[in-house]
């Protein structure tokens, strides 16, 4: 298996606060990699560093064969075209309808696209993400929080990316919606060979779809592996995380 993403010795920080210190992580092609960690351990910052929004202080980031930390603007943009990102708070364009939100990256990539094509493809992506057809003409302010999550996923998928980064996509969804979302990610992974970087606090999602799980603690990735492998490490935070009542409910441990 080749790597879709390799991070080595990453150091990031804001001001005099260090968020990551020597973090290393590898994500294989075609896998769903769960990323867990307490609130404020830097999962979102890691995601932003990988896609080049937070400049790293040290370390190497290799995304789909491009060194994101040192490549030029053009090369970085080319790599980003092959990835999709869903931010923690959706980050939909507030003045566009949901359909236009999904069409925006398509028209950016292929400026002369026939409106029938972009429209149809955008509506399909919205439907895939589980949104009803009426929602396509609404703006982000006119839909519920859970629908915004789905629209964020639809936009992340707009260009059929090879890798998608999802920051807590199921937070705030009802359990049925969250399970449907997990099933959708699995479907897409099977049909498109999607590689997924899946930041989540949702233990059910971890159990249902993640091939491996990376645990962020102490400014580093302290362990990566399947959930049984993680528990075998005996790390105290991991024990509390999976051994708590919610963890036992999800993993039957």
């Amino acid at each position, binding site marked *: 298996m080749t790597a879709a993403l390799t991070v080595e010795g990453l150091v990031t920080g804001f001001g005099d606060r260090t968020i990551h210190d020597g973090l290393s992580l590898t994500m294989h092609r075609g896998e769903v990699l769960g990323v867990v960690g307490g609130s404020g351990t830097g999962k979102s910052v890691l995601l932003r560093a990988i896609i080049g929004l937070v400049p790293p202080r040290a370390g190497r980031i290799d995304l789909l064969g491009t060194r994101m930390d040192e490549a030029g603007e053009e090369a970085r943009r080319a790599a980003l075209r092959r990835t999709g990102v869903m931010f923690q708070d959706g980050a939909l364009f*507030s003045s566009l309808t949901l359909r236009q939100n999904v069409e925006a990256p398509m028209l950016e990539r292929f400026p002369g696209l026939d409106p029938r094509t972009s429209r149809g493809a955008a*509506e*399909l992506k919205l439907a895939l993400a589980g949104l009803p057809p009426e929602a396509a003409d609404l703006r982000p302010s006119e839909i519920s929080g859970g629908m915004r999550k789905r629209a964020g996923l639809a936009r992340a998928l707009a260009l059929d990316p090879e890798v998608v980064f999802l920051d807590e996509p199921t937070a705030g969804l009802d359990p049925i919606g969250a399970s449907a979302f997990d099933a959708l990610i699995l479907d897409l992974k099977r*049909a498109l060979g999607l590689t997924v970087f899946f930041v989540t606090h949702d233990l059910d999602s971890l159990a249902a779809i993640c091939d491996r799980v990376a645990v962020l603690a102490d400014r580093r990735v302290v362990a990566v592996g399947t959930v049984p492998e993680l528990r075998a490490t005996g790390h105290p935070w991991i024990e509390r995380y999976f051994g708590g009542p919610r963890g036992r409910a999800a993993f039957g441990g």
Partner: protein
Amino acid sequence: MPAPTAEPVGPHLPEGALTLGTVDALRDALGPGTGPLDLSGVARVDMAGAWFLAASGRPLRGARPEVAALIDLAAAAMPAPAAPAARPSWRLPSPRGLVAGLAFFGRVLVLAAALPRHPRRLRLTSTVHHLRETGLTAIPIVTLMSFLIGVVLAFQGAAQLRQFGAQVFVVDLIAISVLRELGVLLTAIIVAGRSGAAFTAAIGSMKMREEVDALRTLGLDPVAVLALPRILALVIALPLLTVAADVAGLLGGAAMSWIELGVSPAMFVARMEAAIGASHYLVGLAKAPAFALIVGLTGCWFGLQVGSDAESLGRMTSRAVVVAIFLVIVADAAFSILFAVLGV
């Protein structure tokens, strides 16, 4: 249209990948028709390609398993075509907006009138902060502009007055126009662009992020918390800025009179004392609080009108500045009439 019976299988799709970028070309190449399509040459499709094939309504033959899987996924998810919801693209400005704006004005006045009786309701920290933001930090730009206007007035006046040998009247020209009109008007316009726009943007982005709703749920009145301190600060700051503008404008005029006409500063002051009463200065200054009220009210009002999209923030900010400047000039005209009637 090719008859399906004459062409049991075909047309063959071009070799290679069918993706978002190539769907349009394929649609043109295929033209209308319902005959079956042979997909054996298609190595790869993306979601847009799968959508196109699934939506074509044609029977599909010979697809590779990966391709077929994606087409099935698309077909299963494909939305039933929905009628696009009509959304009103524009609206006539309604008198209701005006009435609501006046109601807002009234509300601010009521809250302000209650302050002397309940001084603890005054949000002192916030007011002082805005006093600094709208007053202190505006001094450089306001005085610079006013100084330059004084220079321009003296320069233009000199050219005209020299023809009559009436150089000394340049003092009257500068003093009356700066003190009575230009000082306060320019200051109000600069402040409308600077602080009025800032009020709208700040309150509007709080509105967008539901911070205004959060205030309401905490039992706080957004008008009292957000608008009143800003408007109060402006009503205090604008007269002070006007004084600074007056001084700078006279300085600019005096400097240019000296250089161009040889009117020495001593002569300038003497002429001012002899010919210009304090009334011009007071008339100018009296307009400042009214202009401040206009700028502050429009800035805060349009901030509260921002919806939940970024575009309305921009629209309201520009509207606030345009309306404020327009109303300031209308008010200035009204003041001119009033003072003419009063004979000052």
